């Protein structure tokens, strides 16, 4: 992303004093030889404005806290607090040290040593220019390094009334389109337009590093309902307001689908040829060899991917290439960074693209700090937590299949008789059993390679579930689209589109995650 007419999000000046205090803690925490001390701080401030047919709403939220960390060669101990006075932080450090000492006295295990990387080691890695360009040339252990997300229109500046005007315009446009497609005003029972703007400040300090990042996270959601039927449009990413502009034309498919859903048929359960859209393809990647490739899951003996990585056994065909990449600062052709991006993770590791599955062959897993040590594999920037108050796990960022070479038009023709599955409805991993569940809100029928416009709901009138054995599905990928699937010309974008998404570790620990990829045609898909 070029920086013409762009600004970067700065490190907030009101946190400068706290940064100085936090910088004194890592050495304080390293009271015993072999202990590794570090500090993570976050402040996430968000403002949600929403308009529906009855009211307009504002909700402001802030979560802020520091996590003091000591790794004693066996266990990662954390002491987290949101009382950020210098005295309390020092008190918490003493409490933490006492806890580690008590555990050390009880454990007879041989400890693993950890060598803290310095900037020279960090810069030896292959880093995105967007990261490299923000690291000072003469960087040292005490240099405060700051990464700020680029944006054009600062999302923090518009007044609530300006934003409400925009949201109400979306409501009106939804009503206008509804009328155009044949939905009576009385049948458009609920409409909501919601904008979220968040400023997320992160700070990581250890004895070799003092770095911060400020991300601006923006999202826009439009929900329309007719009775119990519901359709959704959303936009979002990291950057400015330019990332969440939505036009009346972009709302049209959502309302047309709502009208079609009112008379939609129920799917007969069975096996079908299905063209998945970028977001549903992303859910497949995420649930298939996203979760299975989380290092902590592997280290706990809970993923078959670790065994398959070591054996080199193939689990998919040549189209089965999956990446995880927190360093997507240009989201396909969108004017923003992808939703799951950042400069460094919450354990201070710089973001890099990583291959998880290469043409059906598994690669090394994504890791957090402890799982990299436990497995003896490289660190990656995947240490994430729900908030400062939650524990850190190996988590996905933006997970997606690599792009192919077909256009969307070609792929629809290749479907023949089958369905388009463009609208997700959740999913679930099964890393050890290698099953997969991908929820689909509804399907559109394709007959003879042409869209019929007829929509299908699940067999009981709700969502449709795609299930199966992950390697079977990855061996059934027929073709994939280009990144810019609506054009014949070669792709200009580097990374496939990643949409706004969220992710749980099994059933909890919710974090932001990008979800996307190319369009992907799969045969023999079990839908029910």
């Amino acid at each position, binding site marked *: 992303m070029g920086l013409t007419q762009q600004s970067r999000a700065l490190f907030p000046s009101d946190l400068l004093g*706290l940064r100085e205090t936090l910088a004194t803690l890592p050495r304080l925490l390293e009271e015993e030889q072999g202990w590794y001390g570090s500090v993570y701080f976050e402040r996430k401030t968000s403002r949600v404005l929403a308009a529906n*047919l*009855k*009211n*307009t*709403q*504002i909700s*402001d*939220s*802030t*979560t802020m806290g520091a996590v003091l960390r000591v790794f004693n060669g*066996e*266990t*990662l101990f*954390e002491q*987290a607090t*949101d*009382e950020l*006075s210098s005295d*309390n932080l020092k008190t918490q450090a003493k409490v933490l040290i006492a806890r580690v000492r008590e*555990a050390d006295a009880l454990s007879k*295990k041989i400890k693993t040593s950890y060598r803290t990387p310095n900037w020279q080691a960090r810069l030896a890695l292959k880093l995105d220019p967007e990261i490299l360009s923000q690291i000072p040339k003469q960087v040292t252990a005490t240099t405060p390094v700051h990464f700020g997300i680029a944006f054009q229109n600062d999302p923090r500046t518009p007044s*609530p*009334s300006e934003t409400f005007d925009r949201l109400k315009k979306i409501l009106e446009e939804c009503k206008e389109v509804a009328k155009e497609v044949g939905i009576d005003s009385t049948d458009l*029972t*609920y409409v909501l337009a919601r904008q979220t703007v968040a400023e997320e400040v992160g700070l990581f300090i250890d004895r070799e590093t003092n770095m911060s990042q400020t991300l601006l996270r923006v999202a826009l959601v439009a929900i329309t*309902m007719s*009775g*119990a039927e519901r359709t959704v449009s959303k936009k979002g990413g990291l950057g400015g307001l330019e990332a969440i502009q939505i036009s009346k034309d972009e709302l049209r498919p959502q309302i047309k689908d709502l009208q079609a859903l009112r008379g939609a048929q129920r799917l007969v*359960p069975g096996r079908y040829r299905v063209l998945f859209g970028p977001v549903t393809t992303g859910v497949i990647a995420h649930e298939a060899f996203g979760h299975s490739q989380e290092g902590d899951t592997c280290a*706990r*003996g*809970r993923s078959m991917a670790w065994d398959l990585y070591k054996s080199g056994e193939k689990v998919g065909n040549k189209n089965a290439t999956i990446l995880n990449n927190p360093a997507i600062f240009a989201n396909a052709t969108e004017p923003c960074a992808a939703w799951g991006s950042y400069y460094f993770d919450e354990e201070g590791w710089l973001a890099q693209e990583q291959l998880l599955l290469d043409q059906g062959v598994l690669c090394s897993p994504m890791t957090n700090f402890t799982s990299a040590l436990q497995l003896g594999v490289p660190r990656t920037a995947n240490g994430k937590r*729900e*908030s400062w*108050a939650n*524990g*850190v796990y190996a988590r996905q960022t933006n997970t997606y299949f690599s792009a192919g070479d077909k256009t969307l038009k070609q792929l629809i023709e290749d479907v023949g008789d089958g369905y388009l599955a463009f609208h997700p409805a*959740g999913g679930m991993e*099964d890393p*050890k*059993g290698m*099953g*997969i*569940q991908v*929820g689909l809100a509804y399907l559109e029928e394709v007959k003879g390679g042409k869209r019929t416009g007829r929509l299908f709901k*699940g*067999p*009981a*009138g*709700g*969502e449709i*579930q795609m*299930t199966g054995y992950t390697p079977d599905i990855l061996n059934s990928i027929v073709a994939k689209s280009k990144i810019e699937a609506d054009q014949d010309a070669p792709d200009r974008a580097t990374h496939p589109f990643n949409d706004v998404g969220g992710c749980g570790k*099994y*059933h*909890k620990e*919710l974090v932001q995650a990008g979800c996307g990829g190319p369009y992907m045609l799969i045969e023999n898909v*079990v839908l*029910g």
Partner: protein
Amino acid sequence: MSTLRWNIEQLKTALEKREELKGWILIHEHFKRRERYLMHDHTTLTMDQDREVHGENLRVRVMVLLPKNGRQGEASRKLFTSEPLAPQIDAAIEAALQTDYQEWSLPEGLPKNLPQLKTADPKMAEDLEGVMKELTVRISGAALKARKAKFNSAELFLSLHDFEVYNSRGMIYRYSQSRIYTEAAFSFSKKLSSGEMVSDEFLNTRWAVALDDFPIEGLFEETAERAEQTLDVQKPESGRYPVIVDAEVLGQLIAAQASQLSATNSYHGLPFLKQGDELFAGAKGDLVSITLDPSLDYGADTVAVSEQGLVQNPLKLVEQNRVVGTSADQQFGEYLGMKPTTVRGAVVLSPGSMTREKMTQAAPRVLEILQFSSLVVDPNRGTFSSEIRLARLFDNENKSVKIIKGGSLSGSLKENMLEARFTQNCVMRANFSALSSGGSGYFGPEFGLLSNVSVVG
């Protein structure tokens, strides 16, 4: 950053002095959490992470009058005692002035004679650290017990939350809540005749409020047993089945349906069942009765009074499949001209008369879901679907029990509850999520039998 700049009394005084405010609600929470992440390391347990967390949440909801007849503004905001007070109140009021709601008022009068409810486990309230040590020892014993299945990992989270609720009518309400979470993962491996090693796992999770509702040893035993069943599995034959689901699933299904009994749904034009309607039209199995009960001992949402200042008593929503109540807080009750009612509490489902064993014999083939992968419930349509993570198929004609894994199930409460049956035995379940500061609770039959559910293999 400095320490405390002001206290709650100063905040209340500052809010009372602001003439723009027509009302306000304050919720102040202090919490302490202890967490341990345990994993298998050859013959012993090792601790991957050990965490201690101290935090505070202070949230204000302000209501302001707008210069439009019958309208008011509202906004909520988190406040920080380490930052100057006045600018934070100004910001909340400024935000509220930008919004536009139909007018309503907090109820007159103070709640009286509030019952003393059991909301926090006394042992946890007294010594969280001691309980953590005790449960760690119990988990170690349960995890390392010699079995065919291999222990992989466990998590143990304990927390204690102290709440204070204030509002502009002068209400002060204090209570504490304890929360416990554990998960256990066991795997099972075996060598096939081809020489290939195969392996699968089972993961169990459980939330509770009280230690007595938290059967660690039983949970670990069940997890290990189910892990041992994960390899001799087959996919289900596609078709329609009577399906047994457990209390965890029943709780989610009934809570989703109960959302259609709320004044909020009625006001916003969302699917709504009014009093006199049948909950499930034409139902003729065990007819469902549903109560919202905020008074259960150690329920996930046990509370004596709402933040608006309304005393919370058990509220009957459905009697024998007939809707008899609507859940309405002061705001939505006033909008709809209804008397406000209880809005908090666990969903209580009436028991049936069956046993689980009888359910397994209720038809030639009965599918018992041991675990869904991820149950998706649509509260508007009343539909649900999931992959089957593990199930038992009781083939009563061939007198065999097969273990099922994979395939998916999809249902509609309107259709699959028509001949539903429930067990007489009832259990309590709790769930806490990041999406909500409170919990959701269920008390009701341990098992339910749904009819004619679509399954694809």
